[in-house]
């Protein structure tokens, strides 16, 4: 083995703790990259596998004559197109009334588009009349399976059907009724696939949807052509697969993984690069006389450069190899946990060679970049100058002179203030570590707290009702509801599907009708104030401003099965979840088709037993569906459970990042100042005071970086949230009052903990040896 290789190995071993800290930071960066990039790829592949296997529709069109629309689609290049009926009728499952969904399906064979995967029981018997296939989320919620019965409310009243099988379906991997209803009380929604003929018979109507499947090699232009053909054939609203409610919701998370796979590893790798730079730069300063001697002896610059560069590469390689190994395990764990949580039928776990190569390259490149500056410095060392071990010949700067005037401060405080600029690399690294840790923590926690606050806003200030009830028209349910013990207010409401059309653009959503002086809904304007429901015109969620290029005062068309109605936009609303249209009940009645159902919004007395309310109200004659708003919050809380775990991990990683960087800078600080520390100790200064002086300096750099870190964390968190904002979510960065102080205190705690090894190093200083050597 070469002597320089021996030297490198021994150098790294001698500073193994600092080397380990840098390697661990690189490892975490690579691990987070491999885990998140892998999870993104694997989750995408898992969804795609299910979509391909079950022929997830590329386009679902409503309006016009579905058979004509389907024919137009195949004529225009779709590989297949079918029609089917989809209705949202009341259902009764295990004594719970809800507004379900019935989707027609052939009994003689599986549908060629939007197929189902029977996971329990069987597919329909050919020609079946009283069988349904129940979507798995509803089956789980109600605890029913093959052989159990449920009731569906049709034109002729309740129809009892038997569950033939429990199915997974690409349309409801996330059980969302619509893009406006992606979070719902699990007891308020169920999807049952019924024989198409029977469904048409129960509801007295024929197919109302056309589904098109594109060839695997279809281009975007091919898709546009098919959509145009479907519109030309009469379709009023077309939902591409990307916008389908379930897929769009899940894509939000996928995009999150994609963003994380870029941003989060970068933070670790930058931190590791800087820590490595500080570490090697210090080593090279220490070894200047050795380098000078080597070069005076004829060592070539390139050889010196490679020697120090090699050490960076070794640190990077150790970190990246470990990071890839752990990342592969984390990738598997994240993918499995996620697909299990969501219930994706197909789980694809693959460690992509390119991903591993990038992970390895990341770590090694960081090692090289961290070592490059110091190595170049080393290779440019002038031998004579390097061997002259000059003392502190650098004159004091303006800052040092200014601090000298602050003689009311203790000397140790003045020392800390001056040391901030004494080693700018070290201060920069400490500050960068602080900033990156705060960005990591605040981005993660900001996303989380913003979601929680958005949910609170949505369900405590906007959706003010405690429950909603769908009832048969004219059954006197409104009066009966008002008489229920615990109900404090009842208001009629209206709900229906509409398509907003503005010039060539359209957007399918829900139309809500309320009483003009409603107490069941808060209309939050774009400036955050609450406004009244206008009697003239409609209020719409602000996402349509960009989607449809419309403004206040513009006229739009609301298209329904009853026809088109032109209305004026009276204002836009800032609502965190969903993008709906709001108007008065009277106006809504003129827009929506007549139905045999009516809806009510209820508010309850404080402290009522909500399960009891559900049971009592759903027993009332004429009540066909009940949805508890609080149960939605509970669902969201469940959903967020997985993400709290994620936030916890990110905060832990942020703390490790802060600790690792600060540990390296502290260790370097102690090494740089060993002579001073030993002198102080020789004079009888106790370890705690000496270590305290060093800690004050490090904490000062941390404290100085905290405002910057909080600001950058806020900016990064908002940017991260913006990637999620669309018509489904409108998230503004909202933090609880404690988040910023807690993040700052957390980083300070990490900084404090990182002082412990430094204090130990101060204690271990061999005073006798050090004081005889010239302080470097």
């Amino acid at each position: 083995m070469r002597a320089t290789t021996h030297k490198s190995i021994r150098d790294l071993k001698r500073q193994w703790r600092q080397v380990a800290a840098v390697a661990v930071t690189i490892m975490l960066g690579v691990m987070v990259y491999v885990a998140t990039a892998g999870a993104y790829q694997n989750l995408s592949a898992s969804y795609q596998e299910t979509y391909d296997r079950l022929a997830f529709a590329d386009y679902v069109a409503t309006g016009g004559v579905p058979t004509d629309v389907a024919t137009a689609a195949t004529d225009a290049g779709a590989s297949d197109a079918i029609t089917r009926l989809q209705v949202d009728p009341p259902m009764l499952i295990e004594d719970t009334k809800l507004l379900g969904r019935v989707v027609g399906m052939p009994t003689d064979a599986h549908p060629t588009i939007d197929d189902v995967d029977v996971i329990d029981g069987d597919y329909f018997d050919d020609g079946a009349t009283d069988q349904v296939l129940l979507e798995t989320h509803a089956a789980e919620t109600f605890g029913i399976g093959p052989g159990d019965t449920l009731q569906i409310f049709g034109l002729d009243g309740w129809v009892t059907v038997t569950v033939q099988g429990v199915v997974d379906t690409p349309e409801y991997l996330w059980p969302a009724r619509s893009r406006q209803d992606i979070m719902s009380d699990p007891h308020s929604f169920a999807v049952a696939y019924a024989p198409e003929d029977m469904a048409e018979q129960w509801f007295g109507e024929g197919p109302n949807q056309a589904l098109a499947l594109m060839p695997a090699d279809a281009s975007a232009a091919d898709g546009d052509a098919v959509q145009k053909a479907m519109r030309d054939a009469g379709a009023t609203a077309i939902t591409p697969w990307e916008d389908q409610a379930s897929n769009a919701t899940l894509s939000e998370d996928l995009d999150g993984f994609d963003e994380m796979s870029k941003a989060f590893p970068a933070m670790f790798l930058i931190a590791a690069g800087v820590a490595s730079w500080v570490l090697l730069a210090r080593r090279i300063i220490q070894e200047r006389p050795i380098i000078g001697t080597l070069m005076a002896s004829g060592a070539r610059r390139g050889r010196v450069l490679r020697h120090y560069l090699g050490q960076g590469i070794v640190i990077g390689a150790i970190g990246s190899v470990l990071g890839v190994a752990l990342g592969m395990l984390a990738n598997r764990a994240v993918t499995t946990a996620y697909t299990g949580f969501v219930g994706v039928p197909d789980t694809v776990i693959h460690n992509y060679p390119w991903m591993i190569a990038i992970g390895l390259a990341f770590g090694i490149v960081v090692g090289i970049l961290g070592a490059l500056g110091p190595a170049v410095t080393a290779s440019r060392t002038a031998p004579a100058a390097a061997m002259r071990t000059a003392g502190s010949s650098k004159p004091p700067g303006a800052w040092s002179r200014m601090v000298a005037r602050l003689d009311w401060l203790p000397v140790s405080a003045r020392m800390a203030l001056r040391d901030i600029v004494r080693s700018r690399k070290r201060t920069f690294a400490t500050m960068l570590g602080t900033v990156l840790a705060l960005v990591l923590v605040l981005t993660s926690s900001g996303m989380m707290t913003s979601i929680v606050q958005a949910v609170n806003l949505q369900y405590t200030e906007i959706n003010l009702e405690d429950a909603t009830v769908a009832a048969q028209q004219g059954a006197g349910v409104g009066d009966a509801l008002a008489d229920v013990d615990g109900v404090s207010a009842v208001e009629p409401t209206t709900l229906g599907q509409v398509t907003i059309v503005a010039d060539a653009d359209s957007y399918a959503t829900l139309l809500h009708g309320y009483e003009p002086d409603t107490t069941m809904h808060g209309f939050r304007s774009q400036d955050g104030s609450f406004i009244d429901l206008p009697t003239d015109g409609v209020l719409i969620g602000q996402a349509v401003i960009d989607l449809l290029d419309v403004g206040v005062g513009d006229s739009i068309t609301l298209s329904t099965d009853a026809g088109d109605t032109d209305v004026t936009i009276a204002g836009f609303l800032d609502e965190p979840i969903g993008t709906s249209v709001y108007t008065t009940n009277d106006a809504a009645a003129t827009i929506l088709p007549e139905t045999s159902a009516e809806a009510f919004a209820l508010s309850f007395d404080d402290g009522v037993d909500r399960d009891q309310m559900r049971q009592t109200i759903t027993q009332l004659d004429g009540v066909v569906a009940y949805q508890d708003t609080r149960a939605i919050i509970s669902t969201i809380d469940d959903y967020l459970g997985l993400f709290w775990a994620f936030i916890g991990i990110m905060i832990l990683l942020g703390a490790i990042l802060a600790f690792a960087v600060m540990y390296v800078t502290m260790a370097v600080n102690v090494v740089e100042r060993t002579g001073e520390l030993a002198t102080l100790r020789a004079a009888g200064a106790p370890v705690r005071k000496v270590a305290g002086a060093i800690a004050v300096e490090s904490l000062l750099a941390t404290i100085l970086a905290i405002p910057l870190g909080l600001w950058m964390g806020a900016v990064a968190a908002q940017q991260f949230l913006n990637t999620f904002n669309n018509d489904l979510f409108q998230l503004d960065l909202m933090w609880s009052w404690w988040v910023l102080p807690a993040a700052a205190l957390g980083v300070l705690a990490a900084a404090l903990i990182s002082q412990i090894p430094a204090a130990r190093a101060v204690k271990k200083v061999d005073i006798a040896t050090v004081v005889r050597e010239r302080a470097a």
Partner: protein
Amino acid sequence: MTPTVTAVATNRGVSLKGVTRVFGTGDAAVHALKGIDLEIGSGELVVVIGPSGSGKTTLCNIIGGIDAATDGTVQVAGEDIEGRNPGTLDTFRRDHVGFIFQFFNLIPTLTARENVEVIVEMTGKGDKAHVPDLLKSVDLGDKMDNFPAQLSGGQQQRVAVARALATDPDILLADEPTGALDLPTGRQILGLLQDLHREGRTVIIVTHNVSVAQIADRVITVVDGKIESSTVNDNPADAADVTW
């Protein structure tokens, strides 16, 4: 045979009995000190000389409580210091010992005044108000607010002397105090040490420069870990007359 020097050990004196110091173990063991018996009287100015690696610095470090004897007893300023824990050794050094090093070891980010004040602050002994007087006493009254980089080597070493005096120690230990200085500057420093000795402090100077021995009350020669000789100097020279 190691000569034993007898003197009355007062509270500013030093008494070493059978002191050994071994670095490393087994085949790699280095016996730096081999059974040193030494008495230094209160207020003596002793110069310890010897070739490189003879053990003179180790002897100085053990007296100053920054190194520990492997065996033997060490009594300094009336305190037994062998086997003490680091915390009580800190207190011992604070109360009794002042160090002056070859390379000054000043903190570059502190002014001359602050380099002295920081010792008062960190040890809790001494008075910051007296720091300017200390610096004036080493002829640095007009350089108090200068940083080390703005001082010459001799001036830096004078700051180090003032720093060593900040806690009003009984014993001053100077390890090669002139090693990094030219002759005139070295003389100034020796003069300062001589003045401090005349004030009644015990001063122990460790050096390989035999010329420095001219100012000593007693010259102790250490060779190969043993005291080879201890010679009383009846007519110590004035520092200004020393030459090398």
